């Protein structure tokens, strides 16, 4: 199941040229750009691991592209996303966030139903990948 998270996720995966252009867009708006990765892609997982430091004061996307490549090399079978953070007062939020890598196989989620009191049913999303220990979830043992 192809996970759709963040901007552009209903489009075909971005090419490197397109990723570079998006990063350049962030830079030109003076957004701090950061790179994050995870092997737990549950939509509620807000705590991805940071790759390097957030980057700002740059003029060109090349330096950040270099970090994206480095992250891909080090974490070849994880989800990686690029975030653009707008620090302006009154906004102060991630303004753009999009995936730049996904694992080769994405097993997806199953829906668990929990019968509760008074015929109440609780639903929960369960990621198949997280059945396995961190680091082994997408085939690669790191």
């Amino acid at each position, binding site marked *: 199941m192809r996970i759709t998270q963040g901007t552009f996720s209903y489009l075909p995966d971005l090419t490197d040229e397109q990723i570079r252009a998006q990063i350049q867009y962030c830079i030109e708006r003076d957004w701090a750009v950061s790179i994050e990765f995870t092997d737990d892609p549950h939509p509620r997982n807000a705590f991805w691991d940071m790759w390097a430091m957030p980057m700002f004061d740059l003029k*060109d996307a090349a330096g950040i592209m*270099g970090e994206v490549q480095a992250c891909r090399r080090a974490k070849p079978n994880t989800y990686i996303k690029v975030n653009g953070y707008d620090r302006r007062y009154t906004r102060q939020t991630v303004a753009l966030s999009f995936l730049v890598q996904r694992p080769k196989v994405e097993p997806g989620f199953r829906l668990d139903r929990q019968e509760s009191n008074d015929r109440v049913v609780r639903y929960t999303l369960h990621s198949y990948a997280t059945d396995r220990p961190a680091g082994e979830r997408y085939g690669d043992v790191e």
Partner: protein
Amino acid sequence: MTSSNQLDIVPSNPSDPSHGVGSVGVDLTAAYRDSNIDSLLDELDRELVGLAPVKMRIREIAALLLVARLREAKGLTTERPTLHMSFTGRPGTGKTTVALRIAKILHQLGYIRKGHLVVATRDDLVGQYVGHTAPKTKEVLKRAMGGVLFIDEAYYLYRPENERDYGPEAIEMLLQIMETQRDDLVVVLAGYQERMETFFHSNPGFHSRIAHHLDFPDYQLDELMAIGDLMLGQQQYALDADARRVFAQYLERRMHQPHFANARSVRNAIDRAKLRQANRLVRQGGTVARDELARIDAEDIRQSRVFAEEESAGRRVGGSRSDSNGHAPERDVAKGPPGTVDPPARRPADPPRSR
């Protein structure tokens, strides 16, 4: 290169029946005009005095890039030229200024994507402990991407006397980037000529990656005067005839004193003259005419301690500037202005290493 599609491509001779696909010419004049490079090069000529060989080389580089673009448009193989450079010269000879201009010109010609200049010295690149250097250097390199990285006094990166120095780590990274990311940035190494030579000698990797070695000679007196006029003009000040003469005398003396920094010394002298002019006007009070606000007169320059020194020295040894060994006479301790140093008669050697 992105803008190759803007080039005007016209047949060399439309009436020539023999012209086929391969013989369609490129209008160089139009390409040159369309690149808008002329105004930048003219600005360079206008706003920088002297430096003829440097300007010449910049024009050559511009031509090379233009032709490379046309070749690409015509489907000829074009290897991206290497444009890493070294600028050698004493302080104030215009190295940083020229680097700024070159960044703009290379951007205009589409060689670099942005055209900004990042100035770095050893302290920005080399760390204090294990593991500190690589992130620092990487940070600077990232900031310079798309533009020009100017490393001032580059030889400080290499300190053979300290075998545990972290400089070589930064050198290693620089060398690699200069080779593999030529699309992303241009590196300019700057510093005193002799020390750069030693540096290149012990780091041949740099030498082989640098395509252009530009030397910035010291300015002659007339060039310094012209630089002064240019600076004053830009700030809407002017010297009167008298002041011009005194300023020339001033520069002539200053040139042979320690810590003379070419055009930068001119700028500093002008700043101080402006200070004295303002002081004179305020003391004088009353109403001042517009041209008086703009005029620097001889007295504003003559008050410089360069002249004061001369006078006090002259009083002691009867007008002779220096003794037979070429050393300046001792400063008159009682009368000498504060904060002055003994001026040796010769241009001093490079200042001692400060690190």
